[in-house]
């Protein structure tokens, strides 16, 4: 008990003396950044999920070609979930003499359960009754419909005109500006019409044998939705299927994953920097408490008592820092949500407590790894130090301390990065980088000393000083470099990266897919594009085939447990063939075929498989796959695996074959192109001239992916702010680390007659060298970090701007000189005795 009181007493006094400030600040920042990212990512995930759900219009949909059993709806309602039904069918819309095949969707009040259809003029024109959980009904009024812009153009209609659908006349009340239902598959190729469900009977279109798709849409509490999904899965008949946002387009999923990785790594960078600041602060703490420990030992304190004395202090510090950090994290994420308009309006549920707990655990791990183990050395201080001040820090446990710090870092990396490869790559890169920086700094300082003899006296003294404490100074350069790296990453690299990511979806990103182009339509298509005028499209061959055997072992749906894999095997694949690998694909294993490898039977039969589907179906490099194409079979060997950039919005294929293999199979062509808004009529004309073509509008998906990138861009600045603050904490701790020694030396030099002018020049020279070196390392580190993020997370080419080097070098020099001058300016005016007494 006495020991606890003594410990708290020491803590209180040390706190007043400023000993703990850096440690506490660093830990608060580490926990704060991890908590912010954890809590915020939780909510971003929810926001993005809601957006993705809004593309589906619900959390879960049950889709069927036959009327759904009423039991499904009852089951959902019994779980407290909201439900609406909708029906979709194809029918002619008649306007005067013109007719157009359109997709009609009837909707009930309450539709959609997630997201909303944006229309022009905006809805509602008049107050409407409240429906469901306080949501405004947002469906067409009786006798009116909302139609897509395409239908308006094709039928030369305006809002307010009348059209006929079946036996009923409808007034076009609005144009659909942003529609739902575009995220799952690319099914809706016909212009859309949204109609009130109550009007369906009057059209007389719902008859025996009508091809209607029935949808039951469900939304509500996530757990209940999951339970319902599980419950219904067992009951579904053959023509019924469940759809949710997990079926969303891979483009959106990929963008989401990238965003999460990006966030996680930003937080981790902040945490590492904070860890370094803690390690530096702990080191200083150790050095300043050697005498205390020696005295305690001299007065009879046992090692265990000394240990407990500091353990209590650390635990208390940890608890305070973790609470402050979590509070900071919560406040910051709440601020972020309020700051970003789309999230503010999304009415997100509060984040769960789990990310905060995770951040707290990480904080304690950092404290243990970076600060506590170095402090263990204090326990081993010799009591003889009371007689011999020159005895230094006991060395024994440093290996263990660094080992544990490394383990903690590795664990955090794996935990946060979520991917073993990415985590290890980042960690390995970081360590290699630090070692390399350390070695370079040390060698440079040694080298400079040799040439110092020809320089002015203060420079010579400065270089000698730097070389004499080579290891400590190299350490300081590395720490300063890390801090500077955070600053540069925040300012220069972040901009480059986000620009690069946005550049993945340039303004002319394809927003139309054209499917089912017949071989004899290729030239007419090219002619059409030349007339439009639009850039000539790249027509890619597409062959429908079903995978029937892997390595001569027959497979079917039953061979796989996972529903997605099962589905992939049960339906036909789109295969393609090509001489060269498409440019937005990347080879990850094996080799792409060269023209020479096409000779001979073996060389002619090669396949390249997308890596994701290869994992899903258990296909490996070298496997032989057998496909059934229109009744005839072929077998070919997998000679390469590809990574496909799904968010490129280009035409992508799971499986590409050598041309020799598929050239003679029944083939159609597919293309994607960018249709600028001012040329929408050319798109309509295309559908009119080639009625067999399926022209699919992917503009919505492009907009969705752009939206995610936009959101990440807005939020990442604030997350990087933590990195910045941690960086500053490192800078501060690094400067403080050498402060005591500098103070002593200044006092001795003053005693020996150095004037304040000389001391100032000496200090500024040292700081200039340290700053320049660390600034250059900062630039190198930031470029490296940018490259890692670009290459592995965002998968974009990265070209660092050249300006980073001069900004890093000179910026580092000025910053360190300024900070150093602020820290030591007092020394040059105080009397030596006053300094030595402190």
């Amino acid at each position, binding site marked *: 008990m*006495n020991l606890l009181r003594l410990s708290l007493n020491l803590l209180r006094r040390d706190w007043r003396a400023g000993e703990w400030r850096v440690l506490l600040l660093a830990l608060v920042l580490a926990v704060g950044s991890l908590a912010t990212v954890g809590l915020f990512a939780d909510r971003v995930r929810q926001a993005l999920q809601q957006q993705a759900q809004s593309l589906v219009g619900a959390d879960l949909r049950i889709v069927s070609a036959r009327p759904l059993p009423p039991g499904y709806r009852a089951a959902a309602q019994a779980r407290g979930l909201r439900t609406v039904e909708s029906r979709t069918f194809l029918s002619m819309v008649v306007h005067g003499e013109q007719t157009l095949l359109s997709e009609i969707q009837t909707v009930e009040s309450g539709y959609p359960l997630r997201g909303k259809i944006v229309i022009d003029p905006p809805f509602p024109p008049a107050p409407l009754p409240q429906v469901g959980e306080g949501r405004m009904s947002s469906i067409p009024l009786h006798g009116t419909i909302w139609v897509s812009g395409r239908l308006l153009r094709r039928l030369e209609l305006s809002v307010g005109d009348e059209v006929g659908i079946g036996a009923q006349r409808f007034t076009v009340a609005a144009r659909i500006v942003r529609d739902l239902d575009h995220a799952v598959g690319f099914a809706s190729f016909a212009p859309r019409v949204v109609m009130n469900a109550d009007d369906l009977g009057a059209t007389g279109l719902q008859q025996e044998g009508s091809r209607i798709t029935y949808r039951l849409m469900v939304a509500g509490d996530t757990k209940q939705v999951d339970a319902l999904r599980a419950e219904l899965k067992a009951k579904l008949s053959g023509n019924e299927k469940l759809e949710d946002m997990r079926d969303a387009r891979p483009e959106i999923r990929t963008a989401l994953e990238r965003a999460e990785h990006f966030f996680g790594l930003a937080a981790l960078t902040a945490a590492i920097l904070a860890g370094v600041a803690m390690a530096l602060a702990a080191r200083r703490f150790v050095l300043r408490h050697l005498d205390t420990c020696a005295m305690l030992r001299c*007065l*009879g304190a046992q*090692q265990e008592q000394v240990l407990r004395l500091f353990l209590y202090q650390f635990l208390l510090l940890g608890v305070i820092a973790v609470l402050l950090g979590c509070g900071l994290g919560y406040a910051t994420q709440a601020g972020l949500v309020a700051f970003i308009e789309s999230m503010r309006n999304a009415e997100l549920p509060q984040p769960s407590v789990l990310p905060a707990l995770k951040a707290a655990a990480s904080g304690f791990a950092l404290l243990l790894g970076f600060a506590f183990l170095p402090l263990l050395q204090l326990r081993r201080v010799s009591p003889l130090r009371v*007689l*011999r001040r020159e005895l230094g820090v006991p060395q024994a446990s440093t290996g263990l301390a660094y080992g544990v710090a490394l383990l903690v870092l590795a664990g955090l990396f794996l935990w946060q990065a979520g991917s073993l490869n990415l985590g290890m790559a980042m960690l390995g890169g970081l360590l290699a980088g630090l070692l390399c920086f350390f070695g370079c700094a040390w060698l440079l300082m040694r080298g400079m000393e040799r040439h110092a003899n020809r320089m002015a006296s203060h420079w010579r003294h400065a270089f000698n000083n730097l070389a004499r404490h080579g290891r400590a100074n190299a350490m300081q350069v590395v720490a300063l470099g890390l801090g500077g790296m955070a600053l540069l990453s925040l300012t220069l690299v972040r901009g480059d990266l986000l620009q690069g990511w946005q550049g993945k979806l340039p303004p002319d990103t394809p927003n139309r897919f054209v499917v089912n182009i017949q071989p004899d339509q290729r030239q007419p298509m090219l002619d059409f594009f030349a007339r439009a005028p639009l850039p000539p499209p790249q027509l890619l061959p597409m062959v429908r085939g079903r995978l029937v055997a892997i390595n001569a072992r027959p497979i079917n749906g039953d061979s796989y447990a996972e529903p997605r894999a099962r589905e992939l095997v049960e339906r036909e694949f789109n295969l393609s063939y090509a001489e060269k690998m498409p440019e937005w694909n990347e080879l990850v294993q094996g080799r792409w075929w060269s023209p020479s490898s096409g000779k001979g039977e073996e060389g002619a039969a090669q396949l390249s498989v997308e890596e994701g589907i290869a994992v899903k179906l258990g296909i490996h490099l070298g496997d032989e796959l057998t496909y059934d194409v229109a009744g005839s079979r072929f077998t070919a060997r997998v000679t390469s695996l590809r990574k496909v950039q799904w968010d490129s919005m280009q035409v992508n294929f799971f499986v590409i074959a050598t041309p020799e293999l598929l050239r003679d199979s029944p083939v159609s062509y597919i293309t994607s192109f960018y249709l600028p808004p001012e040329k929408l009529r050319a798109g309509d004309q295309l559908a009119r001239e080639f009625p067999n073509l399926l022209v699919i509008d992917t503009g919505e998906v492009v907009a969705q992916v752009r939206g995610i990138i936009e959101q990440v861009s807005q939020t990442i600045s604030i997350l990087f702010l933590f990195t910045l603050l941690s960086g500053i904490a490192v800078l501060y701790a690094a400067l403080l680390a050498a402060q005591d020694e500098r103070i002593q030396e200044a006092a001795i030099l003053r005693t020996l007659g150095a004037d304040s002018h000389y001391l100032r020049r000496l200090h500024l020279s040292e700081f200039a060298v340290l700053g320049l070196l660390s600034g250059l390392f900062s630039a190198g580190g930031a470029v490296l970090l940018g490259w890692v993020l670009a290459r592995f997370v965002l998968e974009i080419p990265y070209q660092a701007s050249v300006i980073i080097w001069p900004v890093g070098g000179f910026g580092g020099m000025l910053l360190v000189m300024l900070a150093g001058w602020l820290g030591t300016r007092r020394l040059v005016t105080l009397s030596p005795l006053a300094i030595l007494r402190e």
Partner: protein
Amino acid sequence: MAAIVQSIDLSKQVLSPSIDGQGQPLTILHEASFTVDAGESLAILGASGSGKSTLLGLLAGLDVPSSGSVLLNSIDLFSLDEDGRAKLRGELAGFVFQSFQLLPALNALENVMLPLELGGATDARERAAESLCQVGLSERAHHLPKHLSGGEQQRVALARAFVTRPKILFADEPTGNLDAATGAQIIELMLELNRAQGTTLILVTHDEALAKHCGRQLRLEAGRVVQ
């Protein structure tokens, strides 16, 4: 009177730093054997570098010898481990140093309380206040060391040394950092407390005049006991 400190063939060798990094063995204390009786006061005299502080460190168990042994209150110091020696110090010994060695983060009273608290005493505050009173520093009890003069700091150190009523007081150049007048006051105070508590005093100094205050002198030259 029974011997409370026995030094038996106590030797200490260290490796002297050298240019080739190999280091030559250097004997800084050579087979020192003597005894100190309970209540006795012994001055260890010698020039700078003669091995006085080394001997004091070994007698107090702050360092370990290359050979030989020390019996403190009949307990073989070096048969104990580091923690055992610390415990014994806490029970038997008090210390006064040239550089005072007060903890800068604690005020005068807390510094005096420290050895009591480490020993688990429940009335540390009262006893420490009393001890401070004995050295005439009640008024300055709540001042931090940096706000006290050198003489005052050494008086706090004396209060801290005597507060546990130690059997042995080890003093290393206690007046080394003080002017002559203050030094004399400190010595007077120390000897008075020593007499009052019947403490055995082992004092290291190079000051002949100061040594004369002690009942016996032991002179060291180049690591050897010469008298």
